[in-house]
């Protein structure tokens, strides 16, 4: 079934790291380059993230994500290169348009930061089952109700798309035109969306009844089917990440 998830089940070492460590890694990937200004830290984090993505064998899936963000980043480079407030020194000129050194450096820093965040998030999203992530957040104290909303959305939205397709087919089999010019599509919209909305209202009520029956609003201490993954290596990863963030702050204060 198509679920709303980018998860790639490759079963590598990275996949076995617990989701909370990965969240902490995102925090570190954002925090360290911000604390240690300059390019080195940012590029180092970016390099690390890319290496981990290769290890998890998901680098191929990151390329389209980066490609999409490139659109925004290129416009940042152009605008900052041309109009950054501190622009003094001309770097090069393209057909009479001058690009300035300060603006280009500034935009490069932004690019590194964005790619950094993107890769760190990609590491979490591509190598963690969404249900595992939510489960470990609930263990850490996230409300189970909120956790349920997050995890059910991932499965129920594709189901609603499926219902939409069924209803479209049903209406078409009764002779409704749903394809063609804009006007035809607009006319088809109401008779399609009506049943879809009614259908989801009814099934939402039924589902909430079914959830109540299965003690969803119980105040008992929730238990979990899956065992919590408490391994030494996961603890070491967390400690290393926290230590790295602390070291970055210390370095910044001292130097």
């Amino acid at each position: 079934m198509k679920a709303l998830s980018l998860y790639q089940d490759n079963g590598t070492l990275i996949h076995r790291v617990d989701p909370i460590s990965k969240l902490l890694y995102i925090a570190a990937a954002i925090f360290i380059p911000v604390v240690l200004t300059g390019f080195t830290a940012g590029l180092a984090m970016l390099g690390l993230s890319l290496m981990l993505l290769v290890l998890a064998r998901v680098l191929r899936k990151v390329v389209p994500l980066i490609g999409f963000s490139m659109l925004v980043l290129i416009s940042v480079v152009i605008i900052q290169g041309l109009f950054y407030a501190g622009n003094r020194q001309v770097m090069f000129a393209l057909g009479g348009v001058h690009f300035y050194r300060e603006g280009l450096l500034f935009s490069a820093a932004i690019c590194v930061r964005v790619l950094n965040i993107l890769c760190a998030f990609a590491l979490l999203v591509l190598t963690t089952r969404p249900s595992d992530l939510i489960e470990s957040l609930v263990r850490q104290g996230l409300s189970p109700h909120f956790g349920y909303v997050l995890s059910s959305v991932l499965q129920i939205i594709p189901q609603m798309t499926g219902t939409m397709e069924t209803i479209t087919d049903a209406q078409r089999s009764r002779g409704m035109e749903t394809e063609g010019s804009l006007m035809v599509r607009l006319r088809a919209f109401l008779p399609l969306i009506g049943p879809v909305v009614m259908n989801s209202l009814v099934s939402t009520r039924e589902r909430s009844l079914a959830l109540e029956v299965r003690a969803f609003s119980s105040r008992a201490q929730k238990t979990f089917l899956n065992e919590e993954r408490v391994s030494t290596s996961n603890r070491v990863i967390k400690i290393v990440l926290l230590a790295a963030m602390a070291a970055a702050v210390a370095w910044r204060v001292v130097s």
Partner: protein
Amino acid sequence: MKKIVVEGLKYRYPLTAELALNDVSFEIEKGEFIGIIGRNLAGKSTLCQALMGLVPHFYKGAYGGSVTVDGLNVAQTEICELARKVGLVFQNPFTQVSGSKMTVYEELAFGLENLGVPRAEMMPRIESAMALLGIERFGKRNPFDLSGGQMQRMAIASVIAMAPDIIVLDEPTSQLDPQGSEEVFQAIQALSRQGMTVIMVEHKMEKIARYSDRVMLLDHGRLVDFDTPERVFSRDDLAQYGIAAPIFARICQGLGIRTPQTGLYPMTLDDAYDQVVNWHE
């Protein structure tokens, strides 16, 4: 021991004028297998939900009389508390999938996690519920990838895994083929023999006649009759309530064959066969 005591239950849904249940009173013993029959809108589903506390807690609306389940007054007990005693399976299996779990096995664990059942106890419960409903081989499948019938079995198994004392089933075999519904009925009969109280709404009269200890006939929110299948299905006025007796009873009625001891029509294939053979000799 009285498991369920309903006294003068009246209920009206919000924004409606008619009573969905009108002065319904009955008692059910522990371990009984009760069939509920009646035409559409007779109040069958409302009655099921009243046993679970969804009526009145979920819907609100006007409520009168009392429902006592295992000593708990439903009107004063929260649904999640009743969920430990009563399990309810709805008609539409699709909307009973929680949607937050990726496999059938985890889906069965959903209710147990909410109840706070320890992990070690969960697995044997889930496995025996899956075995009872014959869905072991789907354990790793996504719940939404199952067929309607398999989903229906999963919905029943998810409630059985919660080990309620009382299970209420609202047309649990609507999506199943004849063989599938027979298997589900036998699974539920097995639970009933272990002492679980079973209450089932069903339109398949032959099955109700064969498996129920007593049959409850509802019409327009009123309890018309609550008696053994033989007595209920031998009534002359069934058609008036939109009910047709099991086919075997109707054949014997047409032939004028009654079980001599009781003066009622035979209900099951075997009984009917015996009586027809006797009559012929």
